[in-house]
């Protein structure tokens, strides 16, 4: 497991955790620990999700009906609570992705302005 020095870790932007959780669960049901690990490994250890934030987020998503929680057994034969995307959750993920893309583009334009043709008309 690659280690990244603490100072290189990134703070999660407000409101992005939900999206990351939904995205992670697109590959299939996963338990809380698994979700945290997945986010961490897929971000090359740059994003670490505190369990203190992860579990409230999971419960929030369940309450809104985007996730469904069920007890199950993990690959290593451990009992765990698995979270699964609901059809509503899939729609929500699509909405958040498009919003995220817009946001990234907008921020990108502000940070690195490319003079477009005909801008100074």
């Amino acid at each position, binding site marked *: 497991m690659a280690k990244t020095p603490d100072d290189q870790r990134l703070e999660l932007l407000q409101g992005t955790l939900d999206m990351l959780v939904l995205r992670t669960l697109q590959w299939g049901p996963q338990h809380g620990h698994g979700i945290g690990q997945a986010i961490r490994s897929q971000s090359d250890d740059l994003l670490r999700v505190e369990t203190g934030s992860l579990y409230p987020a999971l419960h929030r998503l369940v309450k809104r009906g985007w996730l469904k929680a069920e007890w199950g057994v993990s690959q*290593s034969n451990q*009992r*765990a609570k698995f979270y699964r995307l609901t059809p509503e959750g899939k729609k929500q993920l699509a909405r958040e992705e498009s919003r995220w893309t817009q946001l990234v583009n907008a921020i990108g334009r502000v940070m690195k302005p490319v003079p477009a043709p005909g801008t100074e008309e």
Partner: protein
Amino acid sequence: MRILDWLTRRRRDLDLDEKDFEAEIRAHLTIATEERVADGADRADAHYAALREFGNVTRTTEEARRVWTPEWLERLRNLLSDVRYAVRSLARNPIFSLTVIAVLTLGIGLNAAVFTMLKALALSPVAGVRGSSNIAVVYGETNAGRPLRLSYPDYRYLRDHDQAFAGLFGSAVANVGLGRGRNSRVIWTELVTGNYFQILGVRAITGRTLLPNDEIAPGRHPIVVISEGLWRRDFGSDPDIVGKNIEINSRTFTIVGVADPTFHGTTVVYDVEAYLPVMMAPELGFTFGSRETTAAGIFSDRRATFFYPQGYLRPGITPESAVAQTNALWTATAGERPRADAPAQLRIVPFRQTPNGAPTYILPTLIVLSAMGVLVLMIACANIAGLVLVRGVSRRGEIAMRLALGAGRRRILRLLFVENLVLAMPGAFLGVLLAANGIPVLVAYAEALAEPQRIFFNIEVDRFVIGFTALIACGSAVVFGFVPALQSSRVDLVAVINEDAAPRGAARGRMRAALVVAQVSVSFMLLVGAGLVTRTLEAAKNAYPGFDPGQVVSVALDLKQSGYEEARGRRFYRDLLASMRGDSTIEAATVATYEPMNVVLTRAQAVAIEGYEPRRDEDLTYLTNTAAPSYFRTLRIPVLAGREFEERDDESAAPVIIVNRTLAERFWGSAGAAIGKRMRVAEGEWRTIVGVAGDVKYLLINEPPRPYFYLPFLQSYRPDMIVHLRVKGSVEVAARQAREHVAALDPDLPIEFARPMAGRIQGATIFFRLAATMLTIFGIAGMVLAAMGTYGLVSYTVKQSTHEIGIRIALGASANSVVGQFLARGLRLGVIGAVIGIIGALAAGGLIRSVLFGVSATDVVSFARALIVVLAGVTLASVVPAWRAARTNPLSGLRHQ
């Protein structure tokens, strides 16, 4: 209930499943540990690393819970925990808590019941009619102030000419027989004018109501509107009722409609079951004292007075201008009224003041009851304040501890407030329950007593009144309890922690003294009220009614309901009495028009006394009865001079009359002097007085002696008579046998009732006794409450002074001197309270006078009794705790706290 269901259903959505979450966290830690172990770590290290990585479990749980639980639910939870705490701490003081609950239950229940009745009578005296309290009633008044009904021609003139009223209707209540023969029963009807239903705004639920067109020709409108109750009970709510015929007083009437179910007629307390056109009165046998023989004659006779015109005033017309306008009309037409004792003027009063109407009897009693109810509630509140104050002492430690641990004063006050609320709620709830269930029980009881006559009380369980009473009582309990609670929260931390529990400042002492004085004075007033009523009941029980109702059976018959004419009726009564007198179990038998102690006002007639010129404002109109021979013997009314009626006093003999002692003494000075003198009744022939009978309670046990006279049945026949029998064996058996005597002569004749007289008299005083019982309950409840309250407050003082008592005893003071000191303190407050109470009781005397009989409102015995009870209560409440404190070991007193 629904809220509970909803909460249960939503519980999963509103709350974190903690067990499940714990399991989830455990699973998380296990997996994280196993991963590390799989990577080669030591199991113990792996476990700790996983725990470290996870961080603060409690905080995570809190966060997760916050996701599920909205803020309001969190606040509710805090409140509920306060409530739980309050319930627990109150349950630890069961006597205190149960006392407060009992006090409030009684206070709220009684007050709500009384106010419900008061509201019904004052605001909606006529059920099913909107704004019925605004109906104005017109009646005539003699120079002597006696109310008089009006005749039909006078009514019609006012109806057509009086511009003060938007319309005037008339209605006379009457007893009639419904059905034919032995299956018939007696019902209340109203004989009404054609505009009756229109003015009242009462509709028919089937068919039509009576209309102005039903008031055209005397004797020619054989139609009837029946009540919804009669329709339901007798016709099974037959939808095809309109057009069916019913027999009323043996005449056939066609049903044209069924009145609205909420409407029970305009005669308060009577359940009217049918409405007949007034024009049909002569057909039913009612002549209203007229000497005319034809229906048309009766309706043009100004002497035939039988109802009070009533209606709503036109908008903008004040009662004063209505009186002026109506009297102007009256004076202008005075020439058309020939009668010497015609009303000199007309009066107009609100419906509830209808002369001799039920509300005029009931309202004064209700007002006394509600006043006493408020006093009880006041004591209850003072009591609760006292109890909370006392409890505050033992809680000083607890409250100081809470403050020291950092609880805000707001939080503490909220806790105390919740406690008071928890304390007040069960009492309020039970009080509402008591009122809501008590009112129908009372009404049903009164209805059962009135059987076979149907009565109706326009008293519904008024949710608004009950809720309001409960709110006021609950609110005042909380407020009264809150003030001492506020004081309890103002604890001097240093003082308490230094174990110094002595009272600080004079404020609390003053409040305590004020509470004792208030409770003593209010309970003194209640005790005086209860004492006066108890003395009234004693006086009523011991009062001799002037006759002997034991072993007397009365059987009511009305021959006009079976269409008997006079000759046949005379023959019937003669044969019936002969057959009954032949029965060996019957000691004496007679007939009379009215029973004594009739409760409801009976017929009064104007008389003239030979050789006596009445003053201008004098009204020689007296109650009267018609009696057959043996009447005085049957009822054991003493004949003081002369003789009683005999068989020889018949139509062919000289006209005779018997007067009572009061009438004889009024005009001739003594019973003996009246014999042989002459008087005439209603401008009839001169009658010779042949006997003077003892005074009787003619209407109510608490009436003053009044002039009264008796006409001989054989010389003044009436079809409706009550057979009086004095029997030897069981009165119940005799009542059944009496029915057989009647049936043997005419098997089809309806019998209105056959019952023991004593039972009826007992029932007749029910309202009076009910009121007295309630007043006594109020009085006793108030006294017990005040005694408990005073005891509690004095014990509190003693408790606070345990230290002082210990020092005094240790320094050689005797227990007696210590007790004496506390007694003096208590008595000082008791005397102040009693003095205030005496002033209050004297001031409120006028209020209670209307329900008293045989005692004055300033009765010394009642006042003395109340004073003794109050001072004894204060003495006991002071001495017992002081004595207990003085007897304890002085050292333990010093160590106390």
